[in-house]
């Protein structure tokens, strides 16, 4: 057996929206779809960081034999003979509701408004608590700071509905190296107005510990 032959053996054959596709071992459904230019929307996935699966816009319906399930495509690797549907009724139902709720949660974000319009969602029935809010707590900034920069200047505070982007122990910190990675990866631009909250008083930097 030639090495080339073996390589094709390893590929996973499955279908996305009826189109036969092949995935390399280790690829997720989302990565495979991207290779074939099949568009799956997502707000929290970023190639620089580990998939987190928070925004749930990348959900797809997966049928394997008689069983059907809705799952996020960014986290799940495909199986051979899997049938994946990126725009089934159940999938669109999740996306539309998430987008409508996002319109109420971060009404100031143009990116979310545009994406919602793509799915026919233009208005929201839910209560808008903060008209200025842009952050959807997707976790990209926290992940990039932790995994790529390696400084952990950012974290999530509180839980559930009260979940907020914050600094560890809620104090501005010296850990922040002002690299701007968090601003770069932010899908809505919310981070650009928050960077100063993280790095604290630059003039009092000592190089160690907290400056607060």
């Amino acid at each position: 057996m030639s090495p080339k032959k073996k390589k094709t053996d390893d590929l996973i054959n499955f279908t996305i929206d009826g189109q036969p596709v092949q995935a390399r071992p280790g690829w997720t459904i989302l990565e495979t779809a991207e290779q074939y230019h099949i568009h799956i929307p997502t707000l929290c996935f970023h190639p620089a960081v580990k998939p987190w699966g928070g925004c749930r816009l990348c959900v797809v319906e997966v049928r394997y034999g008689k069983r059907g399930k809705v799952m996020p495509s960014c986290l799940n690797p495909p199986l051979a003979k899997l049938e994946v549907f990126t725009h089934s009724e159940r999938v669109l139902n999740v996306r539309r509701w998430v987008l409508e709720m996002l319109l109420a949660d971060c009404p100031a974000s143009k990116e979310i408004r545009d994406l919602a319009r793509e799915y026919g969602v233009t208005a929201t029935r839910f209560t808008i608590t903060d008209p200025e809010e842009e952050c959807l707590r997707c976790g990209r900034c926290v992940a990039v700071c932790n995994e790529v920069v390696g400084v952990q200047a950012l974290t999530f505070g509180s839980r559930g509905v009260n979940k907020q982007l914050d600094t560890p122990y809620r104090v501005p910190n010296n850990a922040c190296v002002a690299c701007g990675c968090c601003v770069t990866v932010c899908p809505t631009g919310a981070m650009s107005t928050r960077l100063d909250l993280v790095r604290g008083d630059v003039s009092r930097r000592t190089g160690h510990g907290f400056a607060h």
Partner: protein
Amino acid sequence: MERIKSAAQLAGLQKKLLKAQDPKRPVVRVCLGPGCLAQGAAMVSQAFKSTIKAKKLRAKVQPLIKETGCHGFCSQGTLVSLSPADLFYVRVKPEDVEEIVEASLVKGQVVERLLYSDNGARYKSAAEIPFYKMQQKIILKNVGIIDPLKIDDALMAGAYQSFAKALTQMSPEDIINTVSLSGLRGRGGGGFPTGRKWRRAADIARENPGPVYIIGNGEEGDPGAFMDRAIMEGDPHAVLEGMIIGAYALGANKGFLYVRHEYPIAIRHLSIAIEQARSLGLLGQNILGTGFDFDLQINRGAGAYVCGEETAIIASLEGRVGEPITRPPYPAQQGLWNRPTIINNVETWANVPHIIDKGAKWYTDLGVPYSTGTKIFSLVGKVKNSGLVEVPMGVTLGRIVEEIGGGVPGQERFKAVQTGGPSGGIIPYEFKDLPPADMKPARVGLSAPVPISELKKLPVDFDSMAQTGSIMGGGGMIVMDNRDCVVDVARYFLRFLQEESCGKCLPCRLGLKGMQEFLDKFSRGQGSVEDIDELKSLAQAVGDGSLCGLGGTAPNPVLTSIRYFRDEYLAHIKDHKCPAGVCKDLIIYRVDPKTCNGCTLCVRNCPQDCISGRKKKPHTINNAACIRCGACMDVCPVGAVIVE
């Protein structure tokens, strides 16, 4: 204490303890379970000790006072049982203790007024009471019997015998086989076959040598549920024994007990039990001389409901934020510190010694196919006999609620049972309109779905419960009557879940809030009929879109209540009425002038001072100032306050 070095020595110790025990010596067991403690059980126990001391009883009748775990019959607390006389006293107050000591212990008589009575019948012994008679106690066998702080007491009751059998007579493979054959399914709510989980972890550990971990999940957070608490407080050694057997089967040397911080007594009892087992050599190095090492430690949960989810427990134990992560890989493949990890509920662990002791066949005979063994339920709400109930799987819902629970107190009618905690469903007690076709298909090989008109004949097992759209869950059962509004109940559970959601997935974090907004609207009598279907569609999206069990099952109360009680939703929206008289924006309180005898009790108790009327004259409520607290209704001696 001397370390036990072999199985024979353990058997010898048990024999010695049993021999030293005087079977004629009176034993007084005072229930110190959560319900009785709240009723003052600690004072009752203290009163027994001081009275007996003061009376200077002769050595022959000098009784042994045992402070035990939950007896189960919580609505009748404080419970005291006397043996060998086999007497069972209910609602014991500290001032009754002297009479009990005088009559029952000294003279051997019965204190009639403290016996449990129902429908004119008086019951002397616990076994005759219908509440206990229909139960089959296996896991709770020693709970309420032994003193949980004394390992000697547990040993006399037969604890650690299965453990000796497993370690000396069975191979790890045998144990996994027995557990698989027994059909034991996870008691935490998921219902995953325990044997299959163990097998998976054992296979992976074999291919990829290294440490294996086991975890006992005691993070019981459902409102109104206290099954795990009763086991951990009343018979901690059963949990320990199950875990040691599991550790031996899987080759684990380290185990963790993850117990919620809100259970200080459970943590204390488990810590003492671990300490005692360690000093006896039942935990530690070279257990029973077999060369097997295992130790346990307790980790306290910091008050997050979501940390009952297995991947969140692992995150919490590793020191990360307690948020679930996606599965697969399952913890059995890649769990704590990326090693195979078995997480079972403490009730599941407590089942293991019994299966090892009596065999898989005995266990499968107990329940129904696919749901074997017994299950503990905490029966609470509008039910006469509330408490802890252990029954074989497959017993009907009607039997649990009506015969064991004794039905609804007062004149009201049964309405529904909420099973499986906040993410379970609301099952109507009687319903005739929906055809069986509406039910989810049952597991292959099971009988046809139960026709919905006979829902009270619904067998309580994992698959039948799933058919109704509810879940078995941890075993909470909240009974509701006609005074409970399903819209309000669904709102209550949503609020709980919303507070407990970790906030990772958008459908759960925002969706629960969104669903709550819909329900708030309904409870104010607003919204349209289409909104009910919109809410259903949102609930579907939350269920489909969320990662873990919390978000995945969170829509259940909403979905089942819409399915079975659509009329009630319509009454809120179309007629702006709350049929149960609960939703404050839709009700008014009124005094019926014909019935009112003018006692002024309501006038004096109204916090808003909005009831007027003189003595002996009918009163009137000023509805503009009324806050619908219902205080007038509660105090009215003649039932003249009506809610509309």
